[in-house]
Structure formats: structure tokens, C-alpha cells
């Protein structure tokens, strides 16, 4: 993004806030705090990119994925990197799918409802105004009448339904399942970002996950961050935070980061950790901070994100169009033998992602693999995002192995429990049925885990939670966490929109204290 003319703060000047990470967790609050006149410095581990350079190529897109190695264990090891973790000014939103359902109100009180999982220390009504602010600011496109929430209005008309979406819509229709054009943080028409660039309407290139070239997708570098810079925030790229300095009273006094091979220090009044549910707990565990509850790293969650693929007689050409342009929320409460539920989305993916799935997930190799890849233009997918309950066995710890900077690598142990297995079985049967209905041949199931959630849960009680319902650390009152790590449970919805809403909510709480 364009950082020309950006305000610069001295390192020895104690700024009001240092924000670690510029993705969905960091960017909204950077913008909000800067707009309130606070001195804000954002530290981003990755480089600053120019959208135009993204090249419609999956291999070249490696530059926007967080590729510092993580060790993945447990009974359902999760893939990181391109699957969920980004680097660069804008964080993971550089490659996110921009699929932005809101959380279902029931998911926030799952324990009350089912006796399983946990309740969030806040309600849907607490989040709704922030959801609306984010949707307006980003220019979310979506169904103009949302079947599962009569009150909801998306700011922009939906993006076009692509091949997989048309197939899924027909199948849902035949099976009496409600469907809608998906809420997508991709502008369906030209859109002027507030104090930011003019974003061009989506051109249906299908490369959301490889970086958007024309500003259509609401990555933070074309939305909240230009706004933040216009209001006086400073963003420092290629600044990897590895230390927090504290005063005699235990409060944070500065942030230590490595840039251009040198350690630098930025003094600050408050620090916001927004590095995501792997790097945030990794830093805290590395430093041994904010963990009197013993909860840092615990209850790691990835969504159950199983996909079903099939081959169709039609020319589907699934690479064209917004990849997940159809949704159904009819299974948020399927009333089956498990707590919570899932949403279903249509899927189109680009070739390496597809080949990777076929080779890893379907186990194809040799001639069968090449023959299957040949069918690429006739294949369409459908997938879920399903609730994962917090679980003691699912935990992020530090491995004994060091990374290039000498910091211990993250080791994530993750596995499904009974609830996830039941949900998965239910969803797989539903998706298979839909694809059979649609006339798919050669149907197969890709077991997959998505997103990084949990590890610094929010709660009302400092003995069992890392941060309070606003995101403030119970242990260190000028340390806040605003990213997916504070989620007490996974929710069925994809996390980014909720992360952004929580980010704004934290910012308002911080400002309300008179900062």
C-alpha cells in the first residue's frame, strides 16, 4: 500500500499504542485509535506489497503466506501457511477468502443451549453494531434479503454466482434447502474507500487467495490501513516483534522488534497483540507473560472444514468468479446428535490448491492423478465451516526446535472430538446428497481443517481466561489481544468478520477509558 507522507514517530517517544500485526485483528483498531487522535504505531512482520504486483499465480503468492514453519500434530493435523496464515501489511487479509457471514447469535451461548462448549462473555447484540460498521466500511456484497436474518442488509449487491454456486443453488432448491448469494467482502461495483483508494469492482478473476490486484477484495491494505495512515498512524513493515519491555510495576513500557537485522524498541503506553492465534500465544509463551491463568496456548481450534468434490458434464470452470459465491445457513442448528452446527458454501479453487487436495486428501498419484487433474474445468466443490468445541487436548506449545531468529517454533496439537466427528459425518452426508442431487460423478470427500482460533480465550474470570470481554489482559492492564486467539469457541461462521468487529469493540472500550 501507499505509505508516502505517512507520519513517523520517534522510537523513544512513548506512543499511545503499539499494535502488533496489521490483519483483521489489528487494522480496524489502528484506524479507530488513529481517528480518535491517538499516536499509533503498527508493527507488521511482513513486507509492504503493492496490489498490482499480485500475479494470478499460486506459487508466486507464497510471498503473502506466513511460511515460518509450525509443527502440526494431533489426530487431525492442520495445514498452516497458505491455508490460513498471512504476512505483509494487511496480514492474512491479503489472501483471505473474504467470506463474511456473521456469527449466529446461538453460537455465542452454546453452553447455555446445549450444555457443551462455552458461552461467550458477550452477546450477539453486543457485536451487531460493530458487524454493521465493518460491513459498511468494507463494502460487503451480499444477498439483499438474507434468509436467516430478516433485518440484515448488505451494502452492495451480490457478486455474480459462478459455476459451483449455480450448481449448489439448483441442488439446494431441489432439496428444499434455503440458499443465498454469499456475503463477500468483495465490492461488486466500484467503491471509494473512506480516505483510501478507489477500489475497482470485482473482475471475477478467482484469485482471492493469491492477493487481489484491483482492490475489489477488502484486504486491510486497501481499507482500514489507508484510513489509519490518513489519520496519523504509522505502519512499520518487516518489523518482527519478539520482546515486550516492562516497568517495575509490570506494565508494558515498550515493544522490541527486529527490523533490517537490528533490534529496535518502540516505547508505548499500551500494546495490542493482533498477530493471530498462533503468533500471539507463541510470543506470550516465549516471554512467559500474561499467563497466570495457564490458558495461553490452550483450546486451540480449527474449524471443521470438510469439502465434497464432484465432476460435472458442464463446463464449470470453477476458477472464474468469486470462489464461494453461495451460502446456506440452514444447518447452523441441524438438530442432530451434536452441539452447534455448520454453514455450507460453494467452492471453486485454482489449480495448485485443487491438485494439492487431490494429492494429499484424495491420495491420488500417478496416472490417476494426471487423469483427474485433466477434469479440472468440469469440477466443482462444496464445503462447510463447522463448529469446533474447545478441548483440553488441543493446545499450542513451544517446540524445542528454533526458528531462524532463535525463537522456539510453535507446535500445534489438534484433533476432533466426538462432537466434531458427529458434525462432520452429518455435514458430509448432506453435501454428498447435494452433489448427488446435482448430478455429480466421481464424488469424493476432502477432510480439512481451516482457520486458527483460540489460545488466549476471553472470559469474565482471570483464573480461567487470558483476556476480559473487551480483550484486555487480566494480568497486565496495558496489554490487549485482538485477534482470533480470544475466541472462547470457534463459532460456525468464518472468523475474520467477527475478529474485525471485536477489534473495533476493543478500540471503543479502550477509548472509553479516556485514552
Amino acid at each position: 500500500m501507499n505509505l508516502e507522507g505517512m507520519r513517523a514517530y520517534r522510537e523513544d517517544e512513548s506512543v499511545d499504542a503499539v499494535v502488533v500485526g496489521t490483519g483483521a485483528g489489528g487494522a480496524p483498531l489502528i484506524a479507530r485509535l488513529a481517528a480518535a487522535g491517538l499516536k499509533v504505531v503498527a508493527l507488521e512482520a511482513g513486507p509492504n506489497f503493492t496490489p498490482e504486483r499480485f500475479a494470478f499465480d499460486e506459487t508466486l503468492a507464497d510471498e503473502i503466506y506466513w511460511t515460518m514453519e509450525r509443527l502440526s500434530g494431533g489426530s487431525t493435523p492442520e495445514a498452516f501457511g497458505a491455508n490460513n496464515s498471512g504476512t505483509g501489511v494487511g496480514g492474512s487479509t491479503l489472501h483471505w477468502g473474504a467470506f463474511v457471514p456473521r456469527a449466529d447469535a446461538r453460537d455465542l451461548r452454546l453452553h447455555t443451549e446445549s450444555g457443551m462448549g462455552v458461552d461467550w462473555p458477550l452477546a450477539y447484540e453486543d457485536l451487531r453494531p460493530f458487524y454493521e460498521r465493518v460491513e459498511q466500511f468494507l463494502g460487503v456484497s451480499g444477498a439483499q434479503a438474507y434468509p436467516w436474518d430478516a433485518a440484515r442488509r448488505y451494502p452492495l449487491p451480490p457478486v455474480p454466482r459462478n459455476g459451483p454456486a449455480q450448481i449448489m443453488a439448483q441442488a439446494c432448491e431441489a432439496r428444499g434447502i434455503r440458499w443465498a448469494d454469499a456475503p463477500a467482502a468483495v465490492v461488486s461495483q466500484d467503491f471509494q474507500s473512506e480516505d483510501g483508494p478507489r477500489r475497482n469492482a470485482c473482475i471475477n478473476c478467482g484469485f482471492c487467495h493469491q492477493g487481489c490486484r484491483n482492490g475489489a477484495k477488502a484486504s486491510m491494505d486497501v481499507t482500514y490501513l489507508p484510513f489509519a495512515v490518513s489519520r496519523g498512524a504509522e505502519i512499520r513493515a518487516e518489523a518482527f516483534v519478539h520482546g515486550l519491555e516492562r516497568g517495575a510495576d509490570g506494565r508494558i513500557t515498550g515493544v522490541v522488534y527486529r527490523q533490517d537485522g537490528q533490534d529496535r524498541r518502540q516505547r508505548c503506553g499500551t500494546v495490542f497483540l493482533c498477530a493471530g492465534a498462533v503468533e500471539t500465544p507463541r510470543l506470550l509463551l516465549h516471554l512467559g507473560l500474561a499467563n497466570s491463568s495457564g490458558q495461553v496456548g490452550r483450546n486451540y481450534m480449527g474449524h471443521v472444514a470438510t469439502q465434497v468434490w464432484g465432476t460435472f458434464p458442464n463446463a464449470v470452470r470453477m476458477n472464474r468468479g468469486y470462489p464461494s459465491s453461495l451460502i446456506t445457513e440452514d444447518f447452523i442448528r441441524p438438530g442432530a446428535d451434536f452441539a452447534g452446527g455448520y454453514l455450507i458454501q460453494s467452492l471453486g479453487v485454482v489449480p495448485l490448491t485443487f491438485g494439492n487436495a487431490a494429492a494429499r486428501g484424495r491420495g491420488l498419484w500417478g496416472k490417476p492423478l494426471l487423469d483427474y487433474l485433466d477434469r479440472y474445468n468440469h469440477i466443482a466443490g462444496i464445503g462447510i465451516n463447522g463448529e469446533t468445541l474447545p478441548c483440553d487436548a488441543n493446545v499450542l506449545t513451544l517446540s524445542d526446535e528454533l526458528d531462524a531468529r532463535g525463537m522456539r517454533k510453535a507446535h500445534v496439537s489438534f484433533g476432533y472430538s466426538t462432537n466434531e466427528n458427529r458434525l462432520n459425518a452429518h455435514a458430509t452426508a448432506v453435501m454428498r446428497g447435494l452433489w448427488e442431487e446435482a448430478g455429480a460423478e466421481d464424488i469424493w470427500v476432502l477432510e480439512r481443517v481451516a482457520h486458527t482460533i483460540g489460545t488466549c480465550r476471553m472470559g469474565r474470570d482471570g483464573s480461567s481466561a487470558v483476556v476480559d470481554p473487551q480483550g484486555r489482559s487480566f494480568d497486565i492492564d496495558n496489554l490487549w489481544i485482538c485477534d482470533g486467539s480470544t475466541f472462547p469457541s470457534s463459532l460456525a461462521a468464518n472468523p475474520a468478520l467477527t475478529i474485525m468487529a471485536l477489534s473495533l469493540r476493543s478500540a471503543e472500550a479502550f477509548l472509553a477509558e479516556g485514552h
Partner: protein
Amino acid sequence: MSEPDVLFCLHFLGGSARSWERLARALDGVPFCVPVDLPGFGDAAGTTGYSVAAMADHVAARIRTRAPARFGLVGHSMGAKVALALARRSEDGEPGLTGLTDLILISGSPPSPEPIPDERRAKMLAWIDADPETRRREARAFVTANVGQPLDVADEDRAVDDVLRAAPAAWTAWLESGAREDWGRRIGVLRTPALILAGSADADLGEDAQAALMAPHLAHHRRVTVAGVGHLLPLERPAILAERLRAHFGDRPGQADPDAPAVPPAYAALIDSERVNSRLREALGARAAPDDPAYRPTALDPVELAILRAAMGRVVPVPNLDLAARLDRRLASGEGDGWRFAALPPDADAYRAALRTLDAAARAAHGRPFVILGGNDQDTLLTLCERAELTVPDMLGGRLDADRMRFWFEDLRADAVRLWLGHPAALARIGFSGIGAGGDRDGEIADGLPGFRAVGLDSPEAWEPRAAYEGTTR
């Protein structure tokens, strides 16, 4: 190209310059043979310096003395390892050693430690400095054990005499250390055209060992197995050897330009069009470039790279594309994909251990290295990996257990398919249109990209490519 001016001939353990007399006669001066007594052998029995490097220095001095414009190196067994070390120095441009045109490797001891069974090594060490009678008896047994058919009496007597002329210290040094020196990475992959000869009746350094341990170091080679011959081809069949040399000089391997998968003209035209951005065009061009046959691996050693090539050939069977070399380059760069299975060691270590385990499995099941197995047998072993059923005991060379081999094989499949699908020939084959969503634009945010207008079912735009199997006509 014609014959080199001179062939420097390096003998086997227990041989000498005399071992080449009949070959020299058969070649009749074209090219001219210069047999060399290596330190501790023949007329150089009093010379010390028995390491591979020292023996190579000894030969280098002879080469410099003659200063030929074009020369070949003929190495037999132990001498082959010395020849390989010299070839590396020559290719690295060492003054006085340039002009190497050919490598002739006869039952060669490979760059990596020679696969001699421990009991045979122990036996050979036991008698070399025993009493004269034992020495004479065992030396003859050594010669007769290493031939396919008995030599004639005079040749056999001379061969036995040569063994007895050798300095026991040189003999011992080779068995205890020279043969065990690991030159695999130092020698790497040589570009010099090579002829790899083996005897069908050779025990340890026959065609399997040559294929698995020697050939991976030679980018341009031809392997020939001579029927009925043991380990001592220059003594056993000098006429056949001479004939093979002449055939080699007349048709050296690796003279053709390397091939690469073809990108069909229509797809190449799309890549060249303004629908494709220049960064992508450049990347596709780089991926389409032919692989260097002499690619020198760094994460893996050349022997492991050969096993990976064989496995890759089963996982993504496309000709003329060295996915293994491309993967080695990525492994060496340290640029991973951001995660790995916690059960596996770091990527490069996992690959090395897994490939050695796969090879050990082939040897345990078939008595042959993985690289030389037929495709069906290779597939059977890979299928066992896939099912977490490939178990090789440590003592047989297994380094990863069955569960880890399953994880590794999943990684291999993914790495292979990702590398393949980056290639424009692969994108053309599946009819992928996404590369054409828009070319270069000025400014930070691209304006006016064409993208796709129609995105629904059965609505291809006129310019979109079709998959190869569907044909190119609409």
C-alpha cells in the same frame, strides 16, 4: 567429436599399470593409453599417500607432465573413484587438468562408501600381511573369485603377482578408509560424458550398484553390462572393452539439448498476450526452461536425488521434467510452506531419511535398489507408504517408521503436484484460463483488468483454452 589424445588408466585394488597392457594393445594407440601405477601398487609400491585425494594428486602429476590437450580417464574399481575425484577437479577448472573429454568407469567404486560386506572386507584384511604361502594362496583366490570365467594361466599369474607386489599398507588403507571415504557431495554431478561398465557376474559393484550409486553422479552417461564378466573386465575381456570404448567415442551420451515438456502454441500465445501480466509470464518462462541434466543437488545427495527422481516419476509421470531437482532446490532454499507434520523431522532431513528408507525397502524386498526396479514394483512400495505399511528394520537401513513414511509420502505427492501444476505445460493440459485474467497496469491498484465477464456454467469466453483431452476445437 573424436577420440581423446590420451587415456590415463587407473587400476583396481591389487592391479597395476600392467593390468592395462592388453587393452592398450587392442586400442593400438587410438587413443594412446597411459597406465598409471597408483601409490602402493605396481612399480609405485614404495610410494605412499593412499587416500583418494592423495592418489588423485599422484595421477594429476602424471597428467600435468604429459599435458595433453584432450584426455580421458579410465578408472577400474578403486581407480574409478580416483578418476571421479580428478574429474571433479577438472570440471572445477583446476589448471593443468582441463581438457577432460571422457570418463570410463569399469566396475567402479562409487563416490559414496563402497558396499563391501563386512565379512569380505575382514577376510581381505586378514591375509594381506600373512606368511608368503598364505599370501600367494589367498591372492590367487582373490583373483579367481573376481572373474566370471577363469583367466588364462599367464594372465592369472601376472594378476596374482601384482597383488603380491602391492604394499600391504596400501591394500589395507583402501579397504579400511579409501573405499569408505564419502565423496558423494564433493563429486556431486559431473558433466563429462561417461561410460559406466559392469560385469554381469560382479558381486558388489555390478549393474545394480552402478545404477544406484555411480550413475547419479554422471549427468551424461551410458551404462553397459558385459555378460559373463566378473569384476576384472580389463583382464577378462580387453577386446570387448576396447570395442565399447570406440563405440563411446563415436557416440558420446548427452550431446543433444535437454528436452522440456512442450507448451502448445495456442497456450504459448495466450502467455505472450496482453491478458497475462509480465511477472507471471516471466515465472512461467522460467518454469518452462529445460532442467539442467547436471543439476547438482544440495539438500539431497546425488544418490538420494536419483531415488527421488524415480519416485517422482511414479507420482507425477510426465517426461522431460526434473521435478526432483526442482524440489531439491526448494528444500535447499529453506523456504517451506509454513508447516510440517510434527511427526516428521525438518523437510530436507525427512526427505533424505524417507528416500533411504524406500531404497532399503526395495533392497529388502527385491534385493535390488529402488531406482532399478520396474514401475510396478516401485508402485507397490509407494502404495505401502500410502497405507502406512512400509516397515524396514533399522538394521536393514530403515530410518522412518510406517506412519512417518505415510506422512512423507503425502508431502511428496503434494510437492510433486504443486511443482507440476506450476508448469505452463500442465496449465495448458488442463485448459486453465486463470492466467489470462489481466496483464500489467500502471499504479498501485490495477484498473481496467478484463477478468471474466461470464462466470456461470457453460459460458466459456472465446479466448479461454480447453483441456488437451477435450481437443482444441470448439
